[in-house]
């Protein structure tokens, strides 16, 4: 009992950091529910415009459906970007967050998780309903929702890197799309590919596994890259 170790009463590990940021961002998001609704409406409207543009031929729509739903989900996930860091950056909160004793990648992981829960999950839950407009049914709807549930968190992770890199820049929004959309390509290919495979009567397990692998890789790498980018922006 000779060693007197001074310990902070609060545990500043990674998990409490994630939980803290998650709780905070979820509370903030739920206080502006209208904003969440706008993004979902955007998704619904974009998806609805496609049949009006290409015609209501059922075979054509069934062929286009998976790709349209995925591309619209990508665009909708870009729309919610400013919420991820920009507001916190503008009022100085982000600086305080970066100064806190919690590891910054953990706090950013919490923010990303909150972003996904408030944008990715609603998109994934809503998508089977929209897929009905394209004549997809049965197993394809399950595969679509499963793919979006695995793919949208990866999108949130990639978006975080771009959002952190473009903090406080004039050309923010459009620039971010230019930076992030090329990185989306693999997710789009495997996400839409999974639905396509199940439409052709094949098992979609392979594509879904690749989406899961991409998610795991991004979950490790993206918070570190975003934390580095946030520190660069705050310098």
């Amino acid at each position: 009992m000779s060693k007197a170790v001074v310990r902070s009463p609060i545990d500043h590990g990674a998990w409490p950091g994630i939980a803290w940021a998650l709780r905070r961002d979820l509370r903030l998001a739920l206080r502006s529910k209208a904003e969440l609704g706008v993004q979902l409406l955007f998704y619904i409207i974009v998806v609805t415009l496609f049949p009006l543009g290409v015609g209501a031929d059922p075979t054509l729509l069934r062929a286009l459906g998976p790709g349209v739903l995925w591309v619209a989900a990508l665009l909708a996930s870009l729309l919610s970007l400013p919420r991820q860091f920009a507001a916190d950056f503008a009022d100085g909160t982000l600086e305080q967050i970066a100064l806190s004793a919690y590891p910054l990648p953990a706090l950013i992981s919490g923010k990303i998780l909150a972003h996904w829960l408030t944008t990715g999950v609603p998109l994934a839950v809503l998508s089977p309903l929209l897929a009905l407009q394209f004549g997809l049914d049965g197993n394809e709807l399950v595969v679509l929702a499963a793919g979006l549930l695995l793919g949208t968190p990866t999108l949130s992770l990639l978006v975080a890197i771009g959002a952190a890199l473009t903090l406080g820049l004039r050309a923010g929004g459009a620039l971010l799309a230019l930076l992030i959309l090329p990185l989306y390509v693999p997710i789009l290919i495997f996400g839409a590919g999974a639905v396509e495979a199940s439409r052709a009567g094949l098992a979609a397990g392979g594509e879904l596994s690749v989406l899961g692998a991409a998610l795991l890789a991004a979950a490790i790498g993206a918070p570190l890259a975003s934390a580095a980018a946030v520190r660069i922006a705050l310098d």
Partner: protein
Amino acid sequence: MHLGSINWFKFASPASFFAVAERLARAFAVLAIPLAAAGLWLGLVVAPTDAQQGDAYRIIFIHVPAAWMSMFIYLVMAAWCAVSLTLNARLSAMMAQALAPTGALFTVIALWTGALWGRPAWGTYWAWDARMTSELILLFLYLGYMALRHAIDEPRRADRASAVLALVGAVNVPIIYFSVKWWNTLHQGATVTLTAAPKMASIMLTAMLLMTLAAWFYAIAVVMIRVRAIILERERRTGWAGALAGAVR
């Protein structure tokens, strides 16, 4: 001379590299011109007409070196970005900045000549072949890198933010390539594949290697010229740059 006695970090200073870059630019430009002349002569005059493709195949003497350089330069750029992030060296970031436009140029040349070759060979300017698609995405990555640099006014922040982006892109390039390849084979059996390269006559191979070396040396020369401009622009408030400007004036 003992290796330990060389000051390896001397040329990491923009001021001392400025003079070296001029000599390097001149040397590589002088080397590139005869190599390009020899390569073009071998490729366009000496090499025989291809039995299947006629003379249209000769575009590979530009196309293949450009495609190689476009990928190689991205890797070199990402490597300089890694050095600039880890060692916090300004000159490394300037090198990455100087490489990007040349890399983007080679990517455009590769895509453009590929389309021109594809028309007579495949009957179409564009096919969603895995290589073409990933080359196009590589161009987007270059443009994104340059756009991000351009959007940030403060040079040091631009250096570091674009370095993070280049590294994220470098991790993604192989993933993109394999996913596009996989997508393409799933969607349709490709009518013509680039992967099954025909046996190439040694004269054609020689011409192509000469052109590759020429493209490589050209890239080094141009990047050195551009890095000199970047150094001058960013160091314009330092004493040595002012003295240089005074001497010129």
